[in-house]
């Protein structure tokens, strides 16, 4: 499989780079942060992205999607990483779209997917309950009632839940927290009685919330996919989102590496450019190798999903682990090489570092994914 971009993908990359750097440069994130914007991004701009076919990038044409693949999604997220564009790609275009497209029935699909493709529906997927990611550690319960279920429990770190139009909630319908079986997904309106969404102020200034479900009554039509078999859908959702995060982390790494390189070529100390110092040169060269290696595995993992390859979990975990470690290291080196100025909020390094840390931790850090890589490899 090709690890270079096709002509179409190149074109997409160009369009994305231009559009995002024009409409959502890093000052856009700053403005959202500094005005304490309640949802943290512009719904209008999201609709413009929808017109470019980005919000429904993974969806079939029949639901207004552009029917492209993970390879193309990766191109977009790489560019989002470069400017820290705070748009609901992960929550809506990846997780929400995947959950409904793979697990939803026809009615759910026609209700939700066209809205995602048109940029009018923001979908938040509520899965995480514990600070350290564990895919099936779900205790929020949905117990059967007369004409449906009663949902109770709480979720945290739910991306883009503030202002979301729909929630998809992973709840336990049997078994114990940690069991893969016994999880079911429900499509729930945030306005339902008993749902309390509380915005949390995050280090990366993204839209994130805790959600409490206090005996929320939902009818049986809310069930997405088979009862107790939600993990089937969830696995696909995790897989795509993990890889998308790796692409975003790669975009961050590339951007911050390039900025640092530029700084090394322009900053003077001791009467010379600091890029002439061999110790810094060697560290920069070493970082370059890490970024290049990351690029390769991210491309491969994206394509492996598109091609539905067996054992691709191994590539997905390798991509997330490598991208997390590289981003973390590049950010640390970038800050150190920038010196004091990098410590100021005015310069962007800190913003990248904050987002990188959040993306690194989301859906399992590098240690989590090395463990999974070893498991899939059989040791």
């Amino acid at each position, binding site marked *: 499989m090709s690890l270079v971009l096709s002509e179409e993908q190149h074109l997409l990359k160009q369009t994305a780079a231009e559009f995002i750097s024009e409409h959502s440069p890093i000052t856009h994130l700053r403005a959202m942060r500094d005005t304490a914007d309640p949802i943290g991004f512009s719904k209008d701009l999201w609709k413009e992205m929808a017109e470019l076919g980005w919000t429904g990038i993974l969806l079939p044409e029949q639901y207004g999607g552009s029917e492209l693949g993970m390879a193309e999604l990766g191109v977009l997220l790489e560019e989002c990483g470069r400017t820290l564009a705070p748009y609901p790609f992960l929550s809506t275009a990846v997780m929400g779209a995947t959950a409904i497209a793979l697990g939803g029935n026809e009615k759910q699909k026609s209700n939700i997917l066209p809205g995602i493709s048109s940029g009018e529906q923001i979908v938040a997927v509520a899965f*995480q309950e*514990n*600070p*350290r*990611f564990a895919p099936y550690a779900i205790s929020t319960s949905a117990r059967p009632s007369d004409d449906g279920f009663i949902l109770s429990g709480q979720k*945290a*770190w739910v991306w883009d839940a503030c202002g979301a139009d729909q929630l998809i909630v992973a709840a336990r319908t049997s078994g114990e927290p940690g069991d893969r079986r016994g999880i079911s997904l429900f499509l729930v309106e945030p306005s339902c009685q008993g749902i309390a969404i*509380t915005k*949390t*102020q*995050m*280090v*990366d*200034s993204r839209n994130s919330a*805790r959600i409490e479900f206090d005996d929320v009554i939902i009818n049986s039509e809310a069930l997405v996919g088979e009862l107790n078999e939600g993990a089937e859908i969830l696995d696909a959702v995790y897989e795509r989102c993990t890889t998308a995060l790796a692409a975003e982390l790669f975009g961050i790494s590339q951007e911050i590496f390039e900025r640092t390189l530029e700084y090394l070529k322009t900053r*003077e*100390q*001791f*009467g010379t450019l600091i890029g002439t*110092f061999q*110790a*810094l040169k060697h560290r920069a060269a070493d970082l370059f190798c890490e970024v290049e290696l990351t690029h390769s595995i991210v491309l491969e993992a994206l394509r492996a999903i598109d091609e539905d390859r067996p054992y691709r979990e191994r590539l997905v975990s390798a991509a997330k682990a490598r991208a997390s470690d590289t981003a973390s290291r590049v950010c*640390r080196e970038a*800050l*150190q090489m920038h*010196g*004091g*100025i*990098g*410590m*100021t*909020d*005015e310069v962007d*390094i*800190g*913003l990248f*570092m*904050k987002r990188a*840390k*959040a993306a690194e*931790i*989301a859906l399992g*850090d590098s*240690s989590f994914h090395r463990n999974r890589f070893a498991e899939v490899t059989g040791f």
Partner: protein
Amino acid sequence: MDEETILENFRNELRNWLEANCPKALRDSAANTKNSPRQEDHAAWLKACASRGYTTPTWPKEYGGGGLSKEEHSILLEEIDRIGTHIAPVSFFGTSMLGPVLLEFGSEAQKKEHMPKITSGEIQWCQGYSEPGAGSDLASLQTRAVRQGNDFIINGSKIWTTGAHHADWMFCLVRTDPNAPKHDGISFILFDLHQPGVTISPLMLISGQSDFCQVFFEDVKAKAENLVGELNAGWTIAKRLLQHERSMLSGGMPGGARPSKKESGSQKATAPRSYLAESARPYLGEEGGQLNDPILRDQIAQYELDSLCFGLSLQRSGQEAKAGQGPGAASSMFKLYASEMNKRRSELVMSIQGASGLGWEGEGFTPGELFETRGWLRSKGNSIEGGTSEVQLNVIAKRVLGLPD
């Protein structure tokens, strides 16, 4: 009277004085949270401490200090500790940085003028060193001072000035001879910040704090009599202060880098513990007493182990200096290692906390979590401020290892 008796008398007298002068609300601080001290208590305590020079206990009496001997100073610290209070704080940069410099390099008039005001807490000082174009390469500083009658006229700007927004005066490195080699045209001068031409802008850090400022000077005046040491010989003073700062930074890092007195002493009979590991327990869980994540457990062990080695090295270095043995390990090594250790600790904490470490403020996170997250961001500056790690490595290579230029 033998020395012991003299010291005993000193202690008794001190106890009485403390009993009479230290406001009750400021004692037993831990137990006293309900009876929180008022502004007047602080003011009274400062006045009392200053009146005896206890805010600068070892400075000579003629410059406002306490004039205490080393032994008396120890007794003062013990007694202060015994009643659960602290000496009233005065300008840190005054007591720790400027005072020693004036004692070594200042004129008699300067000592008489400035030191008592540090002791009394009247004047808060700040340090004008780094500039936007002069960070690691401090000696390339460009802030100019030109003699004009009995004044120096100062133009330029300083950055990373800790607490400038709360300070009254600045001790400052300025260029007084732009034609001399860069180390030979620098002077050390003092001036009042409350004058026209001084603009102070706090810098917002990535951690959300703003302890540091950028300070701009436009025709700011410093009296010629406030030049410390010789004209153009300020670099000697600057270096002395840098060394001093390095030692303070290496000893004063949070998070275990500072050797606890108890731990470093021998015959420690209480069970050793790791605060880091204990704080990890709720996040990682445990099995048979062992943290449930073997990889993080191994990294925490490595951190604690290195921290232990670091503390012992500080201790050994002190003992070697006392014994007059060898060069010992340089302060650069300690500065370097302390910064890097503290950064490592913060990264570990972030790994431990997972998504709980991603909060910025407000609800959904414990105060401890928010504190650690801010601390993680702040820790990145440790290896930059007070001389970058790269500068420390250069210094070790040159001064300690004697590697060629």
